[in-house]
């Protein structure tokens, strides 16, 4: 019977943390710090933890309440996706791409489908492009609702009203998406050259009703926390991402935009019908936790504007390229390419190497959260452990994408 009270053997990450403590304590040899004892403790946060938003493990070296060092350990959700790509045909792989960043599945499918379309040299139909933007932006709103909702829920012990309001409205978006694709979360809806189903009758009116009442609801969410002195104290000035960090670590998405960098792939590397749409890039000024929260709330407003313009742009037409309806096996010509698109979390793309067969030869995901997580040790050093929770929530991590 294994002893459930025995401490587990320290693994590589904990050993590294302990070794770093020994190195810093011996650094004081010969100085006036020699002989002082440091009381640094190595604490394990995760992989099962309410505030890490998934199975992320943080090996934190604490000096009292100050965080001296953080070693993130990932891989607890590694599902071998890149190897599975070599055993599935291109069409069979679409549901697996859905499960990468499961909060923004429509955008993940889009990133994969765009790369394959570029390899094959085809363009989707016009109506399908508009539908893709429409549903992608709705998914962006739903994803931000979960991201900001769980972030605010971490700051207070799950008793906040904000996350309940956000999930209530997220259900309306999921209803709309379910009517179109048949599923609430993993849509398997995009196809090479178009989308699987056309919009059902009556859907456009429901969508218009939704976007008519949504702006007031977003303002309602903001009114719940924006004036709260405790929220402001915990978020303003904390976890600042500088523009040099954005350049050094490849930070993209709302995390980069909150630092004042106008990096939005919908504008800098436009794809689909985004060149014809009128929307603003939301940026912040300080790059702290509060700015990241504000950028996400403003992006929800901008997404609603895009959805409205797309509803006006819809014209009758086919939603799939005639040549690709059946059978669902494609063989892209040999070559390789990478296409990135603007996921709610940043730049998400796939690099596909094709050898002309039915299966991808090599598929690599460029995941925004993987790149954003590298900045963690730098962001958390010098902050208190309670701020670590706020900062990790504001970075908006989805472990499905980090671990793939």
């Amino acid at each position, binding site marked *: 019977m294994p002893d459930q009270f025995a401490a587990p053997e320290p693994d590589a990450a904990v050993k590294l943390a302990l070794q770093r403590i020994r190195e810093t304590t011996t650094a004081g040899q010969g100085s006036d710090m020699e002989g002082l004892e440091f009381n640094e403790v190595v604490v394990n946060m995760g992989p099962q933890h309410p505030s890490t938003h998934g199975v992320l493990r943080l090996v934190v070296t604490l000096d009292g309440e100050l965080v001296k060092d953080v070693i993130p350990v990932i891989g607890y959700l590694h*599902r071998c996706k890149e190897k599975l790509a070599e055993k599935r045909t291109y069409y069979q792989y679409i549901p697996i791409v859905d*499960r990468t960043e499961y909060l923004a599945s429509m955008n993940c499918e889009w990133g994969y489908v765009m790369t394959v379309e570029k390899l094959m040299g085809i363009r989707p139909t016009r109506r399908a492009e508009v539908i893709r933007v429409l549903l992608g932006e709705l998914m962006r709103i739903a994803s931000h609702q979960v991201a900001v909702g769980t972030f605010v829920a971490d700051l207070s012990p799950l008793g906040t009203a904000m996350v309940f309001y956000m999930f209530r409205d997220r259900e309306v978006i999921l209803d709309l998406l379910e009517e179109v694709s048949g599923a609430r979360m993993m849509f398997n809806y995009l196809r090479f050259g178009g989308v699987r189903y056309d919009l059902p009758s009556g859907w456009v009116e429901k969508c218009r009703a939704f976007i008519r009442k949504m702006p007031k609801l977003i303002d309602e969410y903001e009114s719940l926390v924006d004036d709260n002195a405790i929220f402001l104290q915990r978020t303003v000035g904390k976890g600042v991402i500088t523009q040099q960090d954005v350049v050094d670590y490849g930070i993209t998405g709302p995390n980069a935009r909150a630092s004042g960098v106008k990096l939005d792939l919908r504008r800098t590397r436009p794809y689909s019908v985004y060149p014809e749409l009128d929307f603003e890039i939301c940026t912040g000024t300080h790059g702290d936790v509060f700015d990241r929260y504000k950028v996400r709330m403003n992006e929800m407003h901008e997404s609603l504007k895009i959805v409205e313009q797309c509803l006006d742009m819809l014209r009758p037409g086919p939603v799939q390229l005639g040549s690709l309806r059946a059978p669902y096996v494609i063989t892209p010509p040999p070559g390789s390419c990478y296409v990135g698109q603007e996921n709610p979390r940043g730049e998400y793309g796939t690099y596909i190497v094709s050898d002309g067969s039915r299966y991808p030869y090599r598929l690599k995901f460029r995941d925004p959260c993987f790149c954003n997580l590298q900045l963690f040790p730098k962001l958390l050093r010098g902050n208190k452990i309670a701020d670590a929770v706020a900062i990790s929530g504001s970075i908006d991590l989805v472990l499905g994408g980090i671990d793939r």
Partner: protein
Amino acid sequence: MVPDRLKVGYPKLENFQNPNVITTTADFLFSWARSHSVFPFTYGLACCAIEMLSSGFARFDVARYGMEVFRPTPRQCDLMIVAGTVNEKMAPVLKRLYDQMAEPKWVVAMGACATSGGPFYDGYNVVNGVDKIVPVDVYVPGCPPRPEALFQGLLELQTKIQQHSFAPRLPGAPDG
């Protein structure tokens, strides 16, 4: 389903003037109380965790079954809902957390990944089903299962909990 010997008639409201007496077995009373106030363990690993979250919030309210108290520590829980894929790196952690739960404890395998590996069954790092590590009481299929499907699983679990007996078993007697 609940066998007849464990059912009891509830007192009628008109009889509240008279002293009310319920006679039943201790098993039934405690199991009934346990089944209607389960503390689930937030063991959301992957995408199914989001549907578990949705089932806890306003539209699909899991509080109507008494299960809204999701505790993050296993020491205070009696139900572990494994929502998501378990891989070889996570398996020792899962076993450790299961061991930390106090008896009586139940496990619900939510989703195709926890049931049998799901769409990742042939991955080199994926454990094909959480029942290879811990004993599972209810399997909820789906990828991800809708909150209503999770509720059906939880109601089946309630029936199973109501059949639990804490009387010491005589040697050779069948499991209660």
